[in-house]
């Protein structure tokens, strides 16, 4: 690099750069999530059978459609880096915001860790070389992507757009190359999913499957983290998020159809590479290799988006003094929250080396569901404190409060599902959030400026 450091300072301030369009928002949202089609969703089949995986695909799709609608409304109005964190700060209060930011950082960092482990394991499985471990590939994934994020958001999300599109197209290619319109040739859904084995555990299995059903879509709400970097947040964020959600619903349906028609559910439930396996089972080396590459690309895109989102949430915490202001530094040339990116890098690396894939996924899902529970209450409070017409909203979601109620009910079901699978871990995690909340409320909050946290040019909320 021969270019000298020229500070891109407007006035005397350095801020994040507004360069992104709706396509980047789509790439950020879908990029994070799409890996879920390549691994993770299929564990829902393990929990409740192939049909349960399909049912949760739809029902959890409903949960996330509610998330996307609610999120689009609030974030097109509260457009700030940190996304749901800034929403919580303006609508519920500082302690909630602190917790939401932690949910975000953990959900994304653990998702990044899972992606890196998946990528490493996929390469090791492909290589089949004695003694080859996944550590070097994990390290390269995390460090290279952190570097990309460090160097600028536009390049990061351009890359994400390309690799996400390739991974997505490969699912479409797989779908059409197994002649989905005729059963019996390649696809044998009737023989693989029979009345006898469709729901091997009955309905309790369907509920248990919710835990991994989340994985079909986890992370789509991350689009809001880009709020300070999109050119017109009020338009691009709802548009990119909704388009992303539609894309994902289609991908999830295609993935289930192909995989359930090609593998017995017992195998589907334990494999780490359902789509790659489907590619193998077609017998075509071309498809097999395509799906192998697509699995890697999807994992990369996801980890990339996660670094982006986790760093922004961490950065926002520093900016409001919830954590030391040191984290709120913006790189004068690349205009990225570079210290947050660097700080989270070794944490992600450490967990990628010590945690296992299941645990990382569960931690991520738990933090996600805690956050959705917050969102359902948040939107009700938002409409109450600032009724329609009292402030300008970029987008107003229809059927309020039905999406909020649906979201809340499905979160309760998902908590029950997690209880069936990982009950004690849920208690341990909530205990952690509880303790750190006490720490924040009684100690850390004294360093926070009060009125300055409220940055939106809104009137006083009703009832205060």
């Amino acid at each position: 690099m021969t270019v000298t450091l020229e500070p891109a300072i407007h006035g005397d301030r350095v801020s994040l750069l507004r360069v992104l369009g709706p396509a980047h928002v789509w790439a950020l949202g879908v990029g994070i999530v799409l890996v879920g089609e390549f691994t993770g969703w299929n564990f829902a089949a393990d929990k409740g059978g192939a049909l349960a995986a399909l049912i949760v695909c739809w029902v959890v799709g409903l949960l996330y459609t509610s998330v996307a609608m609610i999120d689009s409304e609030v974030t097109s109005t509260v457009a700030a880096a940190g996304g749901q964190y800034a929403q919580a700060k303006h609508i519920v209060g500082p302690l909630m915001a602190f917790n939401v930011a932690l949910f975000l950082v953990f959900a994304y960092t653990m998702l990044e860790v899972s992606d890196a482990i998946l990528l490493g394991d996929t390469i090791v499985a492909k290589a089949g070389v004695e003694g080859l471990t996944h550590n070097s590939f994990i390290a390269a994934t995390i460090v290279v992507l952190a570097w990309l994020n460090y160097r600028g958001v536009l390049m990061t999300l351009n890359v994400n757009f390309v690799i996400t599109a390739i991974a997505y197209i490969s699912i479409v290619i797989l779908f059409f190359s197994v002649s989905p319109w005729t059963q019996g040739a390649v696809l044998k859904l009737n023989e693989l999913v029979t009345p006898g084995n469709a729901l091997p555990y009955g309905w309790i299995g369907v509920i248990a499957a919710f835990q991994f059903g989340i994985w079909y879509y986890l992370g789509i709400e991350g689009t809001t983290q880009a709020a300070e970097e999109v050119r017109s947040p009020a338009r691009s964020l709802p548009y990119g998020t909704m388009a992303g959600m539609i894309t994902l619903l289609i991908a999830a349906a295609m993935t289930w159809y192909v995989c359930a028609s090609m593998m017995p559910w017992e195998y589907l439930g334990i494999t780490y590479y359902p789509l790659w396996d489907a590619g193998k089972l077609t017998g075509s080396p071309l498809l097999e290799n395509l799906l192998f590459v697509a699995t890697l690309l999807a994992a990369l895109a996801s980890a990339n988006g996660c670094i982006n989102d986790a760093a922004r949430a961490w950065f926002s915490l520093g900016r409001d003094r919830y954590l030391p202001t040191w984290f709120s530094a913006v790189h004068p040339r690349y205009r990225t929250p570079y210290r947050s990116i660097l700080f989270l890098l070794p944490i992600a690396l450490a967990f990628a080396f010590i945690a296992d894939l299941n645990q990382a996924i569960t931690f991520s899902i738990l933090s996600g569901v805690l956050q959705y529970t917050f969102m359902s209450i948040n939107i009700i409070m938002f409409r109450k404190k600032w009724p329609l017409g009292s402030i300008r909203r970029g987008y107003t979601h229809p059927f309020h409060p039905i999406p909020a109620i649906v979201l809340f009910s499905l979160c309760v079901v998902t908590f029950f599902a997690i209880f069936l699978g990982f009950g004690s871990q849920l208690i341990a995690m909530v205990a952690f959030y509880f303790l750190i909340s006490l720490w924040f409320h009684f100690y850390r909050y004294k360093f926070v400026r009060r009125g300055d946290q409220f940055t939106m040019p809104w009137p006083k909320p009703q009832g205060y």
Partner: protein
Amino acid sequence: MSRYTPPEQSKAGQVFDIAVVVVAIFVALWLPLKLGLAGAAKSIDALDAKTWEALGQNPTMASIWEKLGYTPETAHDIIQNRFHYVIDWPTLVIMAAVLIGYFVFLFRASDREYRDVINEKFDDK
């Protein structure tokens, strides 16, 4: 209402706070693993007859298993490894209480802090 001026935090204090958060994160992740709490209850319902029929696999399924490189013997542990969903009521009650308590505390404490924010933001104009 007077403006609240937070104390300046020393460098050492900042570093200490970061360390607290990092340690808390690691403990939260490590403890469940160390105590063996992570992971769901799955156990193998062993069968004596190891054939595809006994394992409940029809010829189509059996052919796919074989394509994937499994024999009835090697697939046995995968197919018969089942969940045993039992609702452990005391744990469920504890979990529900912890979750509800957590959210109630969050919203109540947040609201107290939020009132300060609103007062300072809108009253000193």
